[in-house]
């Protein structure tokens, strides 16, 4: 008896995990290409010159707002965020002691391996490309801003002041350059080589080697290697990433829970169809019962 019950239990558990496992795979099951590209951003090297901001603006035709002369270390306010006028920004974080040198943090889309924005988008206007970038499609977008709600890094920006056709704006990894074998504009311009473009797996190796060779210079943490399932942008820093206001995220991809719920509710349309049949059956039984009651009372 005992063994049989055990067997049954195992069988049930196995079946449940099999179905749930299958159900839980959504976009999260789309395994990113091992060849995908990334950018390693070494914050210990960044001098906060903001040339990357300027290059990015020029590359995307956004130079209207500020010219290169405005750039420079003296003019780096804190907590700036990417906006429709700037797809990337560099923020300054003072040394905790006040005396040490500050850290500059370049902010832009992280190009997640399992993007929350892609999973959330109502019309599938955002997609993760095999080569790494997460791109937005203007022909599909309806401007609902759910991607902004979903993004754990608070990256997508919206043109609130455009009446007719507002865009969702974010870093596009300079695909128009990388497709032709080039590197993104920010990487190209960086005078101190704080940015390295390449295959993500190779970048992780480089990052690990730097940490190994200079343990005093780096904290043993490659931000983006595992955060939210991994991102294309990878960061190295001397300080704790929390102090630089990087969000503390788990290893699980952001879309995990919501996608398992969605796929559970719609598993092969079984739950909705069962509910439909159940309600139909109830309706029929109640109608007949009432008819029978009326006949007996008459």
């Amino acid at each position, binding site marked *: 008896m005992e063994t049989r019950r055990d067997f049954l239990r195992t069988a049930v558990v196995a079946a449940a995990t099999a179905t749930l496992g299958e159900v839980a795979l959504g976009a999260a099951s789309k395994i990113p290409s091992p060849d995908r590209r990334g950018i390693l951003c070494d914050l210990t090297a960044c001098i906060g010159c903001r040339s990357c901001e300027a290059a990015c603006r020029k590359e995307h035709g956004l130079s209207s707002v500020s010219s290169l002369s405005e750039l420079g270390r003296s003019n780096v306010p804190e907590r700036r965020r990417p906006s429709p006028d700037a797809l990337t920004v560099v923020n300054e974080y003072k040394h905790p002691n006040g005396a040490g040198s500050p850290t500059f943090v370049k902010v832009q889309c992280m190009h997640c391996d399992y993007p929350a924005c892609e999973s959330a988008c109502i019309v599938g206007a955002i997609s993760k490309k095999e080569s790494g970038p997460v791109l937005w499609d203007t022909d599909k977008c309806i401007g609902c801003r759910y991607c902004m709600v979903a993004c754990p890094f608070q990256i997508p920006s919206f043109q*609130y002041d455009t009446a007719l056709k507002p865009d969702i704006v974010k870093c596009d990894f300079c695909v128009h350059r990388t497709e032709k074998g080039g590197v993104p504009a920010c990487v190209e311009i960086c005078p101190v080589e704080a940015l390295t473009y390449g295959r993500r797996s190779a970048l992780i190796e480089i990052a690990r080697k730097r940490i190994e060779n200079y343990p005093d210079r780096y904290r043993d943490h490659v931000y983006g290697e595992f955060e939210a399932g991994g991102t294309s942008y990878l960061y190295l820093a001397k300080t704790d990433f929390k102090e630089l206001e990087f969000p503390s995220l788990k290893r699980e991809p952001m879309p995990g829970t919501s996608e398992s*719920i969605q796929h559970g509710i719609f598993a092969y349309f079984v739950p909705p169809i069962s509910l439909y049949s159940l309600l139909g059956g109830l*309706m029929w039984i109640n109608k007949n019962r009432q008819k029978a009651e009326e006949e007996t009372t008459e």
Partner: protein
Amino acid sequence: MSTLTTPEPLTKKYITPGVIILAILAFNGIAFVLARLFFGIGAVTNLSDQYPWGLWIGVDVAAGVALAAGGFTSAALGHVMHREDYHAIVRPALLTAMLGYTFVALGVMIDIGRWYYIWHPLLMWNGNSALFEVGICVIIYMTVLYIEFLPIVTERFMGRVQLKGILSILNRPLESLLRTLDRTLSKTMFLFIIAGIVLSTLHQSSLGTLMIIAGPKIHPLWQTPVLPLLFLLSAVAVGFPMVIFESLLASRSFGLKPEMHILSKLGTMVAPLLGIYLAFKLGDMVIRETFVYLLEPTTESVMFILEVALGVVLPLRMFLSRAVVRSPLWLFVASMLVILGVLLNRINNFIVAYTPPYATGGYFPSVGEISVTVGFVALLVLVYRFLVKVFPIISVEQRHTSPVTKYSIRGTAK
């Protein structure tokens, strides 16, 4: 039938001081909608990259859908459970749901940046997106609600199509169209009614799934994997209070006798439904041990306590009392508390609980946002008032002795 009441178009005059106030509010809202269309969302709202969703999504859409739940709960009671005694509430609830969803769609349209692309989800699918499911279900359900309303239209106009002048050539085709509709619909209506209930359970719950992907941006008091279940349970619980609230309001406004014999019975069903919701809400809290956050004096903890104590526990206690359920006034108050509780819950889930990682300030709706929301509610009431004067929706005590059936009307039609 043993009931003494039948649905009839109401005859009371349309314009009252209240109606004038509502019209002013509606025009004010429309003015801001026009401003939004001509100058962009940023010109009218306090929305930003930090707070992409605000009052319009939290109240017009999320709360709007929940408060239109009376449509499917009363359809389940009247048609699936086949309780003839509740038929008097089915039509008003149907009309409210139909108008409610229409205004939800309008609310979505002005909130999305490219309103003219609202049809995109019909062609461009993303099965992973909870919002996609909500969108598709709402579109289909709205269509179903309009189909469910059609028999009321045929009942009203069959045999009475008398267009004047040139349009009179249309009389005969219109008449036969109404008859065909009436014949087909009476045979197939059950399919639509069941579909409406299934679609409602699907999107009411998926509205709860929406904020799950926002992960740590949502305060732990609300962020839970059972959010879809909590949304469904609260929508089911608010359905009957909403029907009671409207019925009492309508009978007062039109000078009819409140239908307490039905409303009291409906009232007795609210307590168990609220109880189930409360049990899951508190159970989830105990399991995730989020009660620790209640001790922190934050906006979130105060709003959570308000939502649960005033919006769930207090009305639950009230609905358990026989005296409350029998008194129109107290029944009205208790129902209103449940409605406020669900409204507060949706506001909390979508607005209060949302903290962006790089916040530089808070979000509070602008005058424009509030004006549009209030304007839409006012407009909804005005359209409702108009439609109950045109169509047989609200049940009125029969005054004439000879009952007029639709068949006799057909026979005498010219």
